[in-house]
């Protein structure tokens, strides 16, 4: 796993280094400019042209049809080879600006802060859920090394993306007043490049994660019962579950798969502007990206909460790969039973930690 992390870190930083070593010099005229950019003489033929031609004859100087075309967002003839250079006025930008600045930022911010708040409230109310029974000291394997590598790759990339994303979305309002322009921009440039290089790693990791965990996250009838009882979270009642409980499955399907894939896909649209995608597509992608990631981050807060301070012993499962039998029985009874029925874990020849870590201390 360490190797994974190192490799991942190297990728990210190499990427950033690369991004900075991009030639500063002006792109010299390409050696074979004919191949530089495909020139299509787009929209040379305008279906509305006849209207203006007619209008011009009837009322010279009346260019109303032309001014409608100006607004049409269609590309017209130009010698500039930039993407959409032939578009005179695009109005999507203004819509995007309004969405982003007046809706996404305040609502998204409220949602995220709300999620943080709920977590805090819940912690203050409930505190860490302790194991009801004493740990047995007998450990059973919960996550293989590969599974943990996948998880932590996703987790770390996610965190990097989340933090950098948050700074890009809200930093202007939160950090800029504190740091000032220069420091904040320096930080944001760093984070933005990390975001852009880490993003594709995250996208790949999410896909691997999906295939790694999909079998045990397949919904079953037991999950319905679990949901009906709200996982016993409020009542404190014991609700048995499989390897993953209903809540984890929701996180898996909606949070990881749903938002993860949406965020990755939309992010990739924004991350690779070299495919000449239009501004309209990128505006849409940006909205989808920000909405999905804010929701994902909010959900992730719940996941992180449950995996760390929320439930005693949970963090250890992902840290070491092993859980105490008591923990397993209490939180994932069906799984516990299944594993026990199949084989005694210790007999499988797997390594058994000599000293079981102290769950409580690790969990904080």
């Amino acid at each position: 796993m360490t190797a994974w992390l190192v490799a991942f870190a190297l990728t990210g930083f190499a990427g950033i280094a690369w991004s900075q070593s991009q030639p500063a010099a002006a792109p010299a005229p390409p050696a074979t400019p004919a191949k530089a950019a495909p020139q299509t003489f787009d929209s040379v033929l305008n279906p509305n042209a006849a209207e203006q031609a007619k209008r011009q004859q009837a009322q010279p100087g009346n260019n109303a049809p032309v001014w409608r075309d100006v607004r049409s967002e269609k590309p017209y003839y130009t010698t500039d080879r930039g993407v959409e250079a032939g578009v005179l006025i695009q109005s999507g930008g203004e819509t995007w600006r309004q969405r982003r600045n007046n809706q996404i930022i305040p609502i998204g911010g409220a949602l995220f802060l709300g999620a943080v708040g709920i977590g805090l409230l819940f912690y203050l109310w409930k505190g860490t859920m302790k194991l009801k029974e004493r740990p047995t000291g007998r450990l059973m394997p919960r996550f293989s090394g590969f599974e943990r590598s996948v998880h932590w790759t996703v987790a770390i990339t996610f965190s990097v993306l989340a933090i950098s994303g948050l700074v890009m979305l809200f930093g202007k309002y939160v950090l800029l007043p504190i740091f000032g322009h220069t420091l904040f921009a320096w930080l944001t440039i760093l984070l933005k490049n990390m975001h852009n290089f880490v993003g594709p790693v995250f996208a790949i990791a999410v896909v691997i994660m999906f295939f790694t965990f999909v079998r045990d996250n397949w919904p079953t009838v037991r999950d319905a019962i679990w949901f009906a009882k709200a996982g016993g979270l409020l009542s404190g009642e014991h609700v048995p579950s499989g390897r993953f409980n209903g809540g984890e499955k929701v996180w898996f399907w909606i949070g990881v798969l749903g938002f993860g894939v949406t965020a990755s896909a939309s992010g990739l649209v924004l991350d690779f502007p070299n495919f000449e995608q239009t501004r309209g597509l990128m505006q849409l992608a940006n909205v989808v990206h920000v909405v999905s990631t804010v929701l994902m981050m909010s959900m992730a807060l719940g996941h992180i909460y449950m995996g760390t301070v929320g439930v005693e012993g949970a963090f250890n499962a992902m840290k070491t790969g092993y859980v105490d039998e008591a923990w397993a029985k209490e939180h994932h009874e069906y799984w516990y039973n299944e594993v026990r029925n199949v084989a005694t874990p210790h007999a499988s020849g797997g390594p058994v930690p000599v000293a079981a870590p102290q769950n409580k201390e690790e969990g904080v």
Partner: protein
Amino acid sequence: MIHWKPLVGATLGMMVLAGCGESPQQLGQATTYKQGKYQGKPDSRPYESGPSSYSQDKSWQAGDKTGWEKAVKTRQQAQNEYNRAE
């Protein structure tokens, strides 16, 4: 039992978010110029450095706002050929 602290925190958070709106950009409202800076960016005003060695018109001096404006406005009239050909 009510936990006040998180509630206060959340409320404060919402208030902070309210600041995330857009600030007005109209001239005179957003264009704040203070000590060599526009909105935090360290630019000087165009008339402050005076004509450069490439300025043909040296009728104004560094810091001479009126002179600079007059020079620019005079020069702008060159864009109107009606001034020379009615």
